[in-house]
């Protein structure tokens, strides 16, 4: 474990050196990332011009909703910074046979393929998310209890773990398909469901989708559970969701590991 931590820190240092070597590019990447986020925030502000709440009686008024958005920003920035850059390289590695060089290394392939590149500019959104969270929480009617603040980082980690497992499953799909340029698109589209409170998925079709995105692909637990803990009183249902999020995160890590290993067995090298 210590060896892997040491290697990960070496990767991190190398990526930081590279980012700082091309500082202008780094600043531009931060700005473009912030631009995308600002555009979404502008859209949400526009929506609240027309309604006081997202869903009647759901409690997602303006400030709690922005705390929800901030939570999503923090979780996504961690995943985008730590795992997505490596996953994006995988599709070309499979197509060109570059994956062979990874498989012969005396290291765990999943570790090498998912953590060898860190994108520091993606942390910019997380920092803004933290600021937005502070702004929203201070303007809410009630302050979150101490228990909520203790649970919040744990649930953020659970959200990151669920998304990481999804990245690994997509990586496994890439290995099986031979090429998967839609990997990043699929990531964007599937995580799109986690961008809004689960309560919006109402009605028979909404209920089905909500169940699917909670129990099959637990994408709705990623942002909803930590955001609910910090914005709404912790009651019976709230505690049940906390348990569900922790359980789903652990299960997702195990299942994605097994699927990835099975996909590696099926890998056929593309190189000569």
């Amino acid at each position: 474990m210590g060896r892997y931590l040491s290697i990960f820190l070496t990767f991190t240092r190398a990526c930081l050196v590279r980012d700082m070597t091309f500082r202008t590019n780094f600043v531009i990447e931060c700005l473009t990332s912030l631009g995308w986020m600002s555009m979404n925030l502008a859209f949400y502000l526009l929506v609240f011009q027309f309604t006081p709440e997202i869903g009647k009686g759901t409690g997602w008024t303006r400030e709690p909703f922005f705390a929800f958005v901030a939570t999503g920003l923090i979780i996504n920035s961690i995943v985008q910074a730590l795992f997505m850059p490596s996953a994006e390289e995988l599709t070309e590695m499979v197509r060109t046979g570059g994956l062979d060089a990874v498989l012969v290394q005396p290291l765990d392939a999943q570790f090498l393929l998912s953590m060898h590149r860190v994108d520091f500019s993606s942390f910019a959104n997380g920092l803004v998310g933290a600021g937005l969270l502070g702004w929203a929480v201070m303007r809410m009617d009630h302050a979150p209890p101490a228990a909520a603040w203790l649970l919040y980082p744990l649930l953020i980690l659970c959200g990151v773990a669920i998304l990481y497992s999804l990245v690994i499953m997509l990586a496994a799909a890439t290995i099986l398909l031979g090429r998967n340029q839609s990997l990043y698109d699929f990531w964007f589209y599937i995580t799109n469901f986690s961008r809004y409170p689960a309560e919006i998925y109402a009605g028979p079709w909404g209920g089905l989708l909500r169940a699917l995105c909670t129990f099959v692909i637990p994408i709705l637990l990623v942002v909803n559970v930590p955001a609910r803990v910090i914005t709404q009183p912790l009651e019976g249902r709230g505690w049940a969701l906390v348990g569900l999020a922790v359980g789903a995160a652990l299960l997702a890590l195990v299942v994605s590991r097994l699927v990835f290993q099975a996909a590696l067995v099926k890998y056929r090298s593309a190189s000569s």
Partner: protein
Amino acid sequence: MSRAVTTPRFPGLRAWFTMLVICLEERLAYRGDFILGTAMRFLPIVTQVFLWTAVFAATTRTDIAGYSRTDIVAYYLLTMVTRAFSSMPGLSGGIARSVRDGSIKKYLVQPVDYVSFLLAARIAHKLVYYVVAVVPFAAVFFLCRGYFPSAPDAATIAAFLLALLLSFLLGFFLEATLGMLGFWFLEVSSIIFAYMLVQYLLSGHMFPLDMLAGVPTGLAGVSVADVVRWLPFEYTAYFPAAVWLGKIRGAELARALAIEAGWVVAMAVACRVAWWRGTRRYSAFGG
């Protein structure tokens, strides 16, 4: 014994058709990836339908900026159709990459016009996309038929189809021109990303642009919607959808179509000028 050299009757047309066939074959080489990508494009609309349903459930309004709940759902579905015509994934980046790695030089020595080749490739790309996407599109529109008002008259449908065709050409020439900036700046990914942001926000892909009518710019009597009207982006998503929903009619519709055609011509000229000037200052890289 000498063989008579036969010249094709329409050499330009034949070369163009060959380019189209090559591109079709290339697009179909990775079918699994392509079908997966096509099907996934419907996922964001599902979220938007539920979001706006929740918004209308929490407000006493019956319409937002002239759009009822069903209008908004129909609008998002129609923008999917428009984007299927106007979006050009990978076009700008591909051109800039060809300039950077030197592969563009083959088009300088071959009797093939690069812009025409790109257009043929894009038509092939779109044709394959429509063949694959027609099934999910038909299924989604059938399932959501209750959200649409009754079908518009023949003239509106004709205007809608014309707007779609022009949106394809406008999208192509906009992004091709953007990619040609690679002749001046070797790395244009940040410019492309900034363009995508602006395009996504101001094209009406994110929400009906009529919602910006009440958003002030700081200038007296000028809203953000007024500023957006002066830009070409609305023709790549909002305009055809608004035409189908009857939001733009009569003389206003004819004027808007003429402006859209004007933008297509302007961007086609800009693209050609960028190509001429760019190739003049180009230094080939790569082996």
